């Protein structure tokens, strides 16, 4: 009886822990941060050096904040991750892309912007961080309704 109960408890624990482990890949703390500084701190990004090898291709003026196309790429050797932050969005951290062997540090994606803001892209290469910034003006916000 006791062993049966233990087996049941063990089965339950495995059933609960497994899905949690699968979700742990999403950094809840960093994505829930309300300021860019807090978000970057949760990601362990300290001082980032400005770099001209990081490219942000985004419109100067976005007419529709609900769909702002941005294209980011890094020419920094050994770039393993790109992080996108929109300073004035309610939740500034937009995305973190981790690149393994076989991928180029390049991403094109459409994002929502609540208002005119700096778009910051950070690159991680060899344990160091680099940053580039571009301001995008928004005439109609894309976060409310």
């Amino acid at each position: 009886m006791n062993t049966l109960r233990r087996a049941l408890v063990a089965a339950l624990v495995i059933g609960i822990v497994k899905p949690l482990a699968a979700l742990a890949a999403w950094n809840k703390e960093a994505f829930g941060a309300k300021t860019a500084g807090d978000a970057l701190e949760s990601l362990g990004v300290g001082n980032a050096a400005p770099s001209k090898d990081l490219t942000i291709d985004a419109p100067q003026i976005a007419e529709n904040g609900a769909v702002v196309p941005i294209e980011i790429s890094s020419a920094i050797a050994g770039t393993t991750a790109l992080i996108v932050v929109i300073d004035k969005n309610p939740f500034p951290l937009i995305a973190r892309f981790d690149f393994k062997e076989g991928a180029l540090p390049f991403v094109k994606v459409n994002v929502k912007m609540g208002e005119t803001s700096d778009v910051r892209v950070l690159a991680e290469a060899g344990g160091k961080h680099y940053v580039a910034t571009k301001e995008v003006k928004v005439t109609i916000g894309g976060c409310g309704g």
Partner: protein
Amino acid sequence: MAAGPMKMRATLGQGFTDVRVLMTHPMETGQRKDSDGKLVPLHFIQNLTVKVNGKPVVEAQISQAVSRNPVFSFRLKGGAKGDKIEVSWLDNHGDTNSTEAAVA
């Protein structure tokens, strides 16, 4: 409403493979109100994985600030015709979807 269709195209560029993928997802921010003035709850893709011939090459974590029906472009080093590209996502409801395409 849940997992809608995905579309993907992978083409050889000069020295790289261009992967373009479209996902069907509402990407609700949790801040929009419906016609009754009630907040529409958060519903968005959180994780995204790109695999080449079964090997993960890009792993992304994204927020609700990615536009509705997200479109992503990635670039892979080299590549050859027939390489199998697989993209899958996981949202905050635990729903998943994936699609496969061969490099053309």
